[in-house]
């Protein structure tokens, strides 16, 4: 049996101080990531209620293991990993989708879209313009199946394999959804940039009328 340490004992006071420090750090670093974790959880579970449970579980685990967090590391990534692991442990689901391999066609579509952007004077739109809010809006507007994959891979930096495992879908389906989601985002953002008047070309071209360069035929 353990003999309780009196609250005014130096050891107890030291423990209380270190706990308060840990709580302060946790408040400053982990809690602000709640939205990011909620988004990962929703992408993984595809269900609002399951997602909330997963967020809670993630923060409980993170708090219990806070002493293992390297504060020079990216807290959001650390929490995402905890979230994914918690999800994998909880989940019992089978794959339901058939893979469609169309990476190459989607790549060609990306080049065509680039040609359209160039024709509208928007070659540097992603580096020159602040499209952050428009990107977030476009991501949220995607079909959930596509949104989840693009959020997990392009925003949260999960690998194809991790997403395939987490969502119980073949890796080919992950790719296929990812590339289609990217295309949908690029199209939405290009339309946004043109509508917002960012274009610098004197004459706008219709989407498929690319300039007369060799790449135009791609």
């Amino acid at each position, binding site marked *: 049996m353990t003999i309780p340490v009196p609250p005014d004992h130096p050891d107890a006071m030291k423990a209380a101080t270190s*706990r*308060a420090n840990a*709580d*302060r750090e946790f*408040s*400053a670093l982990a*809690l602000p990531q*709640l*939205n*990011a*974790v*909620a*988004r990962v959880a929703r992408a993984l579970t595809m269900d*609002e209620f399951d997602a*909330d449970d997963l*967020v*809670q579980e993630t*923060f*409980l685990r993170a*708090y*219990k293991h806070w002493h293992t967090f390297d504060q020079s590391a990216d807290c959001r990534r650390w929490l995402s990993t905890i979230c994914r692991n918690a999800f994998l442990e909880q989940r019992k689901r089978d794959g339901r989708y058939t893979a469609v391999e169309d*990476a*190459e*066609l*989607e*790549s*060609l579509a*990306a*080049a065509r879209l*680039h040609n359209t*952007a*160039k024709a509208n004077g928007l*070659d*540097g739109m*992603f*580096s020159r313009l602040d*499209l*952050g*809010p428009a*990107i*977030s809006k476009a*991501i949220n507007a995607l079909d959930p199946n596509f949104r989840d994959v*693009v959020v997990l*891979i*392009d*925003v949260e*930096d999960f690998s*194809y394999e991790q997403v395939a495992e987490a969502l119980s879908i073949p890796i080919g389906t992950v*790719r296929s959804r*990812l*590339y289609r989601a*990217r295309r949908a*985002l*690029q199209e939405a*953002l290009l339309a946004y940039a043109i509508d917002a008047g960012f274009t610098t070309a004197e004459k706008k071209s219709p989407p498929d009328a690319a300039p007369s*360069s*060799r*790449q135009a*035929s*791609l």
Partner: protein
Amino acid sequence: MTDRSTCETVVRQLWQYLDGDVPPDKRALVQSHLEICVGCASHFEFAREFLNAVASAPVDGPADDELRDRVLVALAGEGFKAH
């Protein structure tokens, strides 16, 4: 080689190349082509800038006050005190 069929072969690998998902032999072909073909290189650059913009877009998450309160209550059960 900057003939049209090479351009198409290379551009077909665009997403997988940027994701580090092409086998080493194909990777070398893409890499060497991009060094000499400005047109293809610009497609890759545009896509790379797109990916960077997506990765750094602000989080517009679904979390709300109710979820935050719920998490804080659960943490309090473990002895956590918010600061």
